[in-house]
């Protein structure tokens, strides 16, 4: 499959937007403008971007506690996202959700989740609903290597298989769940293998390679839209930073390991590819970067200027 230059540039830009957003979060958080927990996606950008580039606006995703990247990639708005993590009323969720619960239903983002494995049921149910309503929408469930040990993962794969549901399980295997190495707590040779007994095809891709992720997803989407059921995609990836802002990310991970992953940075990889194939010039890509920078600055300024929600809002939205 050869991807259009338009898609490559779009993915490059999306990855830059995620990276800049997360770097900004770091500053906002350490500067005391954001409270709670902030789990950064830096290093894993190619997964969210490769997957979402293969989706339509009306497709669904469920996200995780490390969800900013998914949200940006699926069409969340930087200003509303920044406002949300800062608890402002102009945020996607009016400040009620915060970093771990960002959702934008208008573009199919069914929500980040504070419960590890919290998206499995929701994504599979969204796929069921698409099937019942007779649309050809698909649902993507992002989840971590750690989440792959939750029992509900196995329950939903069974449902997806018996009912041929249009769902794609995307595992972001970043080799750690918090401070615990994945292999210490995860049986089997790979997480991708786990769907095979259910008859759900799976594949493992280099999660630093946005193009590979895109291609694997596009194939899964095609299968799902045709009514041929679910797919599991395991993406091999890495978070550069700690589990959350505040965890230095060292001690339980060696310097060499961190550096080896940074040496195959997803953004640099795609940039090199774009330049090598003469799809855009360095100057053009730099211009993209400046635009993203500008967008981020505006988003931050707007979020900072936005008010907190009125205390009266506290008991709105408990019920519909």
């Amino acid at each position: 499959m050869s991807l259009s230059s338009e898609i490559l540039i779009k993915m490059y830009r999306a990855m830059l937007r995620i990276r800049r957003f997360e770097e900004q979060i770091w500053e906002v958080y350490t500067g005391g403008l954001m409270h709670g927990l902030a789990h950064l996606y830096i290093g894993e950008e190619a997964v969210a971007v490769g997957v979402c580039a293969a989706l339509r606006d009306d497709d669904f995703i469920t996200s995780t506690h490390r969800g900013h990247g998914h949200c940006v990639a699926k069409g969340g708005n930087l200003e509303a996202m920044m406002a949300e993590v800062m608890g402002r009323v102009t945020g996607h969720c009016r400040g009620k959700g915060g970093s771990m619960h960002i959702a934008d239903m208008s573009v199919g983002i069914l929500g980040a989740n504070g419960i590890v494995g919290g998206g499995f049921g929701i994504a599979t149910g969204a796929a069921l609903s698409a099937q019942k309503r007779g649309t050809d929408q698909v649902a993507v469930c992002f989840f971590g290597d750690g989440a792959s040990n939750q029992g509900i993962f196995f329950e939903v794969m069974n449902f997806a298989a018996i009912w041929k549901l249009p769902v794609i399980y995307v595992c972001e295997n970043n080799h750690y769940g918090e401070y615990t190495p994945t292999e210490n707590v995860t049986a089997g040779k790979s997480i991708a293998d786990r769907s095979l007994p259910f008859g759900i095809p799976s594949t493992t891709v280099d999660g630093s390679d946005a193009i590979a992720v895109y291609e694997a997803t596009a194939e899964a989407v095609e299968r799902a839209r045709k009514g041929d059921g679910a797919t599991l995609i395991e993406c091999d990836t890495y978070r550069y930073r700690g589990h959350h802002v505040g965890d230095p990310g060292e001690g339980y991970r060696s310097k060499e390991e961190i550096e080896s992953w940074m040496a195959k940075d997803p953004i640099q990889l795609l940039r090199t590819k774009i330049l090598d194939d003469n799809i855009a010039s360095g100057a053009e890509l730099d211009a993209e970067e400046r635009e993203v920078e500008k967008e981020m600055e505006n988003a931050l300024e707007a979020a900072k200027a936005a008010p907190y929600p009125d205390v009266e809002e506290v008991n709105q939205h408990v019920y519909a």
Partner: protein
Amino acid sequence: MSMREMTYGEAVKEAMAEEMRRDPTVFLMGEDVGKAGTVFKVLLGLHDEFGDDRVIDTPIAEAGLVGLGVGAALTGSRPIVDIMFGDFIALAMDQIVNQAAKLRYMSGGQAIVPITIRSTMGAGRSSAAQHSQSLHAWLAHIPGLKVAIPSTPADAKGLFKTAVRDDNPVVIYEDKMMYALKGMVPTEEDYTIPFGQAHIKREGDDVTLIATSSMVHVALDAADALAEQGISAEVVDPRTLVPLDRETLIESVVKTTRAVIIDEGYKSFGITGEIASTVYNGAFDYIDAPIVRLGAMDVPVPFSKPLEDATIPTPEDVIKAVQDMKIR
């Protein structure tokens, strides 16, 4: 009694270490309890002493984790199972409610299930709706479970040690906002606190503030302020919800004739309702003012700071409730 100053977190760790030294059948398992010493870092060092065999990192699988704990407890071990955030107990409810709580009864007294489940509660960290709940009332509702909810370092240590030694499933809740709280703690190996003994944290004559966990400190702050207004408040901490020391609560209200009950669980259908009815029934002839209940607002805990703050009882809320009783 020899005492040492330590934090609430250190007190929990010391209790656990002492019990593990004393009884080789005690072990701890949970997510990131090993080298990481939990995400709150309160158990740092425990793994150094006891190693992988007895301080065990588990997969992220709460239902399985508690289920294994129940099976181990049924067969001669005394596991301590760590559930990082109280909210995640929801994932393990079947194992706790339908298995752990009922095995002794259903087996006609053959079984014991000496499992200790420790978890956290409490809002105030901008952690939003899935990391801030105080759901202890859920478990206090279930016959067969005991529930402890310590408010000070000394209580944390003494109640924890009792929990490990108890032959029943015990759930013990630590408010994550209190880990750095300091206090004097007895250091004897056999220091334990019997379950079902409320503790009077401050004596007073005009009104009883019955409070649990971090709300004890809210009540104590309120009592300080009330004292300046010439109102003498007694602060009583039940310390365990099951068993509940109804007598001490009633006696205090018989003496003061008024009560405010403060708990961080949801106000509706929760702990404060149970305690209020206990006090109404037990002290009916003595009560001079309607009993006031203060709890978390009945909403999912919001992320945004000003909203979150509005959902948790404060000393000001307690003071206002007492002032409205028009004592003086």
